[in-house]
């Protein structure tokens, strides 16, 4: 099989994921796009490993080993990422990336209202937690 096919498919998938990371608003959709990018890399690794394992005398199958590692790390990453997104969502009430502009110039003017929001949220979440414990 021509090596260009998997390589080009990998490049296209990678750039699709790239577009998703840059263009999507919801944090979870961005995580999906990251998965796409990781898979593109995996495809590349597998394709080249197959190609090299046939041409070389001795091979470590490093491509496939790395692919496995990548998959494991991707699983960990998706767990941590979702935990972060959920924490942000619980804290801010939104998972939209472009609303998290704490580092923006002139953010101070919004900070007061944001602080107020969290202040009013805190007792609510606290009450929710107590309710959850009660039901449990």
């Amino acid at each position, binding site marked *: *099989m021509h090596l260009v096919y998997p390589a080009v498919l990998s490049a296209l998938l990678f750039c699709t994921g790239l577009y998703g*990371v840059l263009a999507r608003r919801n944090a979870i959709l961005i995580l999906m796009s990251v*998965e796409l990018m990781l898979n593109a890399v*995996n495809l590349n690794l597998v394709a080249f*490993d197959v190609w090299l394992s046939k041409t070389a005398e001795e091979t470590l199958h490093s491509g496939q080993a790395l692919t496995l590692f990548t998959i*494991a790390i991707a699983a*960990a990453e998706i767990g941590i990422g979702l*935990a972060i997104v*959920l924490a942000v969502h619980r804290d801010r009430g939104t998972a939209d990336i472009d609303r998290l502009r704490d580092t923006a110039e002139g953010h101070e003017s919004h900070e007061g209202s944001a602080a107020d929001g969290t202040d009013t949220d805190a007792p609510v979440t606290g009450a929710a937690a107590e309710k959850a414990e009660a039901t449990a």
Partner: protein
Amino acid sequence: MSLAGAPQGFLSPTGVEIAFLLVGLVTFGAALVTVTTRQLVHAALWLVVALGGLAVEYLLLTAEFIAWVQVLIYVGSVVVLLLFGLMLTKAPIGRSPDADSGNRWAALTVAVAAATALIWVVVDAFRATWIDLDGPAAGSTEVTGASLFQNWVLPFEALSVLLLAALVGAIVLSRKAKTDSSSPLANSRTATESSRLITKSDEDSGSPSSGPKGRGGRSERVEANKRDDRGGPAAQEGAR
């Protein structure tokens, strides 16, 4: 490189190549829909299609073990996790008009430029390179297992430590902020108990399709600690 002189060409594709191309087109299309659709849940489902397509591509590349792992982990657990995430962040069902941020044209530009550059380089570099798919499979379970446990044992074990760390991190991150500090001991105990209970109920109700399959596939070829960590994030989301 060694097969540079072989009488193969673009105009005479083999069956494998045709299959690869077709599946690749489906995969790419599914990926495109994933990143452009306005329905968030559909995006996750299209992601399943794309990842499944990739698993087929692995099979076509004779890397069967990778293909099954792909199906088990990605399609089985990651997408389920993502769906849980969507659900827990109260993502809207149906079309949401603001799924794309205002950055999309810049993103499109960057992505197209990157794709152009990458494809140009790849095509230019591997124009005359073929993969020899004949002979024994390059990625059968036996070959992969031998290579993994002969040459890659130490990274493999290190990876388990990493997964443990991710597990702990996910728990810490998704823990609720303490509201009452008067009795920390009792409080933490009740919290762990409740999370355990919720985990159980989640596994019972929320993963009828992926739970048995993922767990079974896992324990079949890797060891127990991996299963732990896969249960970890799920437990976390359940606690949420």
